[in-house]
């Protein structure tokens, strides 16, 4: 090969490597950015008059007079809409049966979408579910609902070779020439002044319970459940992990038994997380019966097993990194071995051990598969501390899955899903960041 070709190959390979790294960075951005931007909308959003009404009626928050004044203005603007509908209903009574039935059907659709947008019409009976008692509380959702009032979807099958294509049809065209026709222009024009969106900073999203299957309220039960599970896992894993690491570094010889133990630990690290879940179900719940059925305790124990190898490895590495001279100095002063470990080696290894612990905390917080069968439920109240021994809990990772696949109205509560994901990712990343800072600070302190 010519030198120039070799150099070209060299350059292009370097380029490829850099491309791979850039691609990885892009992938990270692609994942983080939508989660962050949409997740933040769970906390900061434009709340409508319906939102303020809900806060006032259900939580007795907000300025009663002000909200009532706003409501009054809003209702005045709404009145023409319902008047138009009444007028139209009167009009169609005159029509032929066939035509009347057709209009009635379409009108029902209009009324339904209006109800979703503005809440129940005046004079309707009060529904049971909160989501039906109020109109759209969030302006971003309201905009979608406005579109649903104005348009409806239809599938276009005109090209037999291709799949059906979705097209939007203007609803106005259905009511051409009737008394209902001006309604659509009116809604389009006045929707914003009816709903009066205002910027809301809902920081209590984290600390409120959820209402009406996550349509309203926050994610406190999930956050608390995740905290319980994580702390519980650490409670079991930290002492065991550190003790095992001390034994393996300071006491264990090189026998067959010890190498067997080591391979057991590395096998444990490779076991798929879902298998941990099954094991937790079969062992902690069905065999040992730590609790009647799913409980935070069983979930914590399962998670503890999952992160144990990580804790052991990190602690082992940290202990091995302690200079041998520290140990010699302590021993030469007449310290016993155990005393040396406790007063000299462990303090010196602490930054490394802590880093490992914090990182595995992040892992425990984010794992889903092990808690599906052992601890997680979809709906629940925040638990008291003593209830963790016997009660299951909602948890962030499980409820993210649950809300975006099994919830009855997946699209309606996207903001809650994104908010949960953001909370979980932020929690894990903050833990990781804390690990890095901790490591830097303590090692700086050690250097004096």
């Amino acid at each position: 090969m010519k030198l120039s070709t070799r150099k070209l190959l060299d350059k292009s390979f370097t380029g490829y490597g850099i491309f791979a790294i850039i691609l990885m960075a892009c992938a990270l951005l692609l994942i983080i950015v939508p989660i962050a931007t949409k997740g933040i909308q769970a906390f900061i959003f434009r709340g409508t008059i319906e939102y303020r009404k809900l806060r006032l009626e259900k939580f007795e928050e907000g300025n009663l007079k002000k909200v009532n004044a706003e409501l009054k203005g809003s209702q005045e603007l709404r009145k023409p809409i319902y008047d138009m509908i009444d007028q139209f209903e009167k009009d169609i009574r005159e029509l032929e049966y066939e035509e009347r039935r057709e209009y009635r059907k379409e009108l029902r659709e209009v009324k339904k979408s209006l109800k979703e947008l503005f809440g129940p019409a005046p004079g309707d009976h009060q529904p049971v579910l909160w989501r039906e008692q109020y109109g759209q509380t969030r302006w971003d959702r309201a905009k979608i609902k406005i579109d649903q009032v104005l348009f409806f979807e239809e599938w276009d099958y005109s090209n037999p070779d291709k799949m059906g294509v979705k097209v939007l049809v203007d609803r106005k065209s259905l009511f051409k020439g009737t008394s209902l026709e001006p309604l659509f222009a009116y809604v389009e024009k006045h929707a914003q002044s009816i709903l009066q969106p205002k910027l809301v900073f809902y920081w209590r999203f984290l600390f409120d319970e959820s209402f009406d299957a996550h349509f309203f309220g926050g994610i406190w039960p999930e956050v608390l459940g995740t905290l319980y599970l994580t702390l519980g896992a650490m409670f079991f894993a930290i002492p065991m992990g550190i003790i095992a690491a001390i034994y393996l570094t300071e006491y264990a010889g090189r026998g067959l038994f010890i190498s067997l133990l080591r391979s057991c630990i590395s096998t444990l690290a490779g076991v798929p997380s879902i298998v941990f879940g099954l094991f937790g179900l079969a062992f902690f719940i069905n065999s040992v019966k730590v609790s009647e059925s799913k409980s935070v305790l069983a979930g914590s124990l399962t998670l503890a097993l999952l992160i144990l190898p990580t804790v052991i490895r990190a602690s082992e590495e940290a202990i091995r990194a302690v200079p041998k001279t520290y140990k010699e100095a302590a021993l030469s002063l007449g310290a016993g071995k155990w005393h040396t470990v406790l007063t000299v080696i462990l303090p010196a290894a602490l930054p490394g051990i802590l880093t490992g612990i914090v990182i595995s905390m992040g892992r425990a917080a984010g794992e889903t598969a092990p808690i599906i069968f052992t601890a997680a439920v979809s709906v629940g109240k925040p638990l008291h501390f003593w209830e963790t021994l016997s009660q299951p809990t909602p948890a962030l990772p499980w409820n993210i899955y649950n809300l975006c696949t099994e919830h009855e109205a997946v699209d309606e509560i996207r903001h809650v899903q994104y908010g949960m994901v953001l909370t979980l990712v932020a929690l894990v990343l903050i833990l990781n960041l804390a690990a890095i800072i901790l490591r830097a600070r303590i090692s700086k302190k050690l250097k004096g």
Partner: protein
Amino acid sequence: MVESPIQSTEVDNAMNGTDREKSQETASVDKNHNKAPQVTGGKGNNGAQVQDDCHVTTKDFSIFYGDNEAVKKATLSIKARLVTAIIGPSGCGKSTFLRAINRMNDLIPGCSTSGNMIFDGLDIYSPQVDVVALRKRVGMVFQKPNPFPKSIFDNVSYGPRLHGMLKKSELEQIVEQSLVRAALWDEVKDRLHQNALGLSGGQQQRLCLARALAVNPEILLMDEPTSALDPRATAKIEDLISDLRGRYTIIIVTHNMQQAARVSDQTAFFYEGILIEMGDTKPLFTKPREKKTEEYITGRFG
């Protein structure tokens, strides 16, 4: 009293686990009975009563790393309250010998000994010997300064605390005393609670010395204590050694023959694991008896 070396290592390993509890226990035993229980017939002298006598004697003492004999049948005696220097080319076993005196070699897997090393009338390699008590009485300063990553105060008080002294006032006294003896007090008295790793190398080494002095040992082992230091810090340490002479038995391993000549009363010369010659420093440097010693001292090898 000669024990098989392997056995003694094993016993030591077994004992290490609960050294702390045990050392406390022994201390309390001592308080109750003035005469501590003795199993074998030593002379029963307290170290303090040994004047101008031999403090440590060895007889046919060998140290093995696996099959390799690092020190070969050394027989010598070290005088109490004097400074003894051990010199020799690198790899001659002088450090190994030094570390054997407070049984630091036990930490090295596969290390075993034969022959006798008598301290305070006892063979320190006998299985009943309490290594912790031994190390309390035989302190050590290492080649590289190795303060713990704790405050200066905690470094010095580590030993006394270990041996059951917990009263703050007592600790403060002993820390000051030790730092004064190590000529470090004036430099650090205002920052006793700062991290010891912030000190300079020479200060760190003196801190290590203070730390060793704080448990009030009878013997101080120094393993090339100045090899990692600059000349000025070295001079300070040498001055200290001269100050401490007469109070402690000091055994110093050094590469530097001038240093040995300056600070020591007695010198032992090791070559390839064999003790070639031992005697008063001056005659050894001026009129060595052995040809090897002369060759080493005059710089033909080493």
